């Protein structure tokens, strides 16, 4: 298995953290095209811990807070940052952006900005994997807010009924926008719902990334064997829902407490106390990662803006000839300037 020693897990989590910090900077510098950027700071152990157990060929979907998951699945930070900046050099040539990034090469069936929207796709990908005997698992990543959507329960039932290689990962950062989970959910023991559908189901605290890896190992194995699984990972959303949200609905004291639940610092401490790495090594690693992500920012800023004509491409599959009316419309719009 790759990436499961603590130094490796720390490195991946630090990459996610630094990437997200740079996304925040991109936004502040006015270089991000989007006005809604959802950072996964505080949730790194969920992305890294689960993805550590995924293999080449596995597929996944994410919610709107999915940068870290895609990065942990091997995404190129340059092309991710360029997409977030709305550049032609991004993964989706600026069409998808932060909330709709997708890349079949890495099994990413798509981030989705509709709460719960990406969940059923993994049921289909699980069906497909079984039909094609690929041995792949398909994993849906979503937030606690998605447990309000009926689509989750429909999907879990179908996965269990058809014994699909599918895993549902609920990143419980305690909030859906300004609504705390206890105001949205009568029974906060989320895994109990999945168990009721016959899934292998657990909740794990996200503070220790190794705990997440342990739970993911167990559940992913079961999913691969045809017992679909559900994992809820408890964490805390360190900052506002999106970059512009200053979280007026929660106390600063609560935020301070919440931010103590920091999986990145926790892993760093553990590396130090167990003597696996010393401060100098850790600092050097952090610096290297900072340089990698700085380069991603530079790449994004240097990238070309998309060509206007490309806007009318990809509405239908690339095998489709461009319909004439679209060209006519393009000419007309170009003429109007």
């Amino acid at each position, binding site marked *: 298995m790759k990436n499961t020693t603590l130094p490796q897990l720390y490195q991946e989590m630090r990459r996610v953290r630094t990437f997200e910090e740079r996304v925040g900077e991109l936004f502040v510098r006015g270089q991000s095209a989007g006005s809604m950027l959802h950072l996964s700071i505080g949730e790194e152990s969920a992305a890294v811990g689960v993805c550590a157990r995924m293999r080449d060929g596995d597929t996944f979907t994410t919610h709107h807070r999915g940068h870290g998951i895609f990065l942990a699945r091997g995404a190129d930070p340059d092309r991710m940052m360029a997409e977030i900046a*709305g550049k032609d050099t991004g993964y989706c040539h600026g069409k998808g952006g932060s909330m709709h990034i997708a890349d079949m090469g890495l099994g990413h069936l798509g981030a989705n900005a509709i709460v719960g929207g990406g969940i059923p796709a993994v049921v289909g990908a699980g069906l497909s994997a079984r039909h094609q005997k690929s041995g792949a698992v398909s994993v849906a990543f979503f937030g606690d807010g998605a447990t309000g*959507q009926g689509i989750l329960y429909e999907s879990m039932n179908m996965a269990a009924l058809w014994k699909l290689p599918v895993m549902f990962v609920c990143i419980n950062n305690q909030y859906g*926008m*300004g*609504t705390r989970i206890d105001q949205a959910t009568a029974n906060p023991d989320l895994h109990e719902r999945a168990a009721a559908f016959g899934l292998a189901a657990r909740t794990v605290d996200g503070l220790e990334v190794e705990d997440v890896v342990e739970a993911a190992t167990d559940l992913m194995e079961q999913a691969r064997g045809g017992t679909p699984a559900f994992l809820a990972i408890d964490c805390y959303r360190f900052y506002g829902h999106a970059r512009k949200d200053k979280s007026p609905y929660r106390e600063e004291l609560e935020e301070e407490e919440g931010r103590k639940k920091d999986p990145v610092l926790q892993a760093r401490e553990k590396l130090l106390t167990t003597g696996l790495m010393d401060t100098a090594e850790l600092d050097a690693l952090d610096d290297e990662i900072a340089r990698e992500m700085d380069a991603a920012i530079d790449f994004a800023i240097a990238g070309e803006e998309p060509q206007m004509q490309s806007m*009318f491409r990809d*509405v239908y599959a690339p095998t489709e000839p461009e319909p004439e009316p679209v060209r006519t419309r393009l000419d007309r719009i170009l*003429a109007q300037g």
Partner: protein
Amino acid sequence: MTQSNERKLTIARSMAEALAQEMRRDEKVFVMGEDLAALGGVYGNTRGLADEFGTDRIRDTPISETAFIGAAVGAAMDGMRPVVELMFVDFFGVCFDAIYNLMAKNIYFSGGSVKVPMVLMTSTGGGYSDAGQHSQCVYGTFAHLPGMKVVAPSNAYDAKGLMTAAIRDDSPVVYMYHKGLQGMGWLGTEEGAIVHTPEEDYTVPIGKAAIARKGTDVTIVSLGIGVHHALRAAETLAEGGVEAEVVDLRSLVPLDRDTIRESVAKTGRLIVVDEDYSSYGVAAEVIATVVENEITNLKAPPKRVAYPDVPIPFARVMEQFCLPNAQKIVAAYKELQTA
């Protein structure tokens, strides 16, 4: 005419005021949706209301649109007057059954024995790079389906009056407000939407368009933010001696066909400005309204300035390129002339 000492509100404030006044007037009125109480609504429509009315009447829901919109239908049939918020109209995908199979059809199915007095308020529009699941208008999608009224205010006066009328209506009303007009700083501010709004309660009739600017040479029909593009285009055209008449639809269902036809009968030229996808939408309906009735009025074929038929892209340059604006309206007028 507006005097300087008259009170001006943003659309967000005027919507909140209409809600508050109707809640004071009728205790059957309540509001339900995501992040309305503590946050005051993403677009400020319920700001401050939870303090006065409590969280029973300004009720936060889980992210369960099908269930809370469906629940509002049940409450409405049982005698309440719910106002529910679908945060972005784009999310209708997850809950359309509750909207068009339940909300919109129950009066008819019952042979008129039930009423469904509810309002579904929902934000529309793009222009701020939020990509294809947060930027649509889909006016045509809603207006196409019988059984629900559809309104779309362009300024704070109409926003308050239409909200009050919608709450008092015994049929379901879809209230589509444009994000770019809300007066929330982060979405940019359209000064034209911030107008004099009386403190007392009043209604703006559903189904009645307004003439936002009088003119004789071309009729520009629009709704929501498009009205402001049209007014700006009219100013530019006026510099060249062309007087455009701007019709603000205000309601899509019922559509005020008479006002549209009267205006075009006078001007002989028609441009429809619509931020929804171009095909099968409001623009087509307005044009059909004119040409089906009387074609000899027209001095040139009508034009639509609408969003091209592509999903809304994320990248700012691409999105801005596609959105209707004053410049495109002026260009459309020039094409009318050469036609």
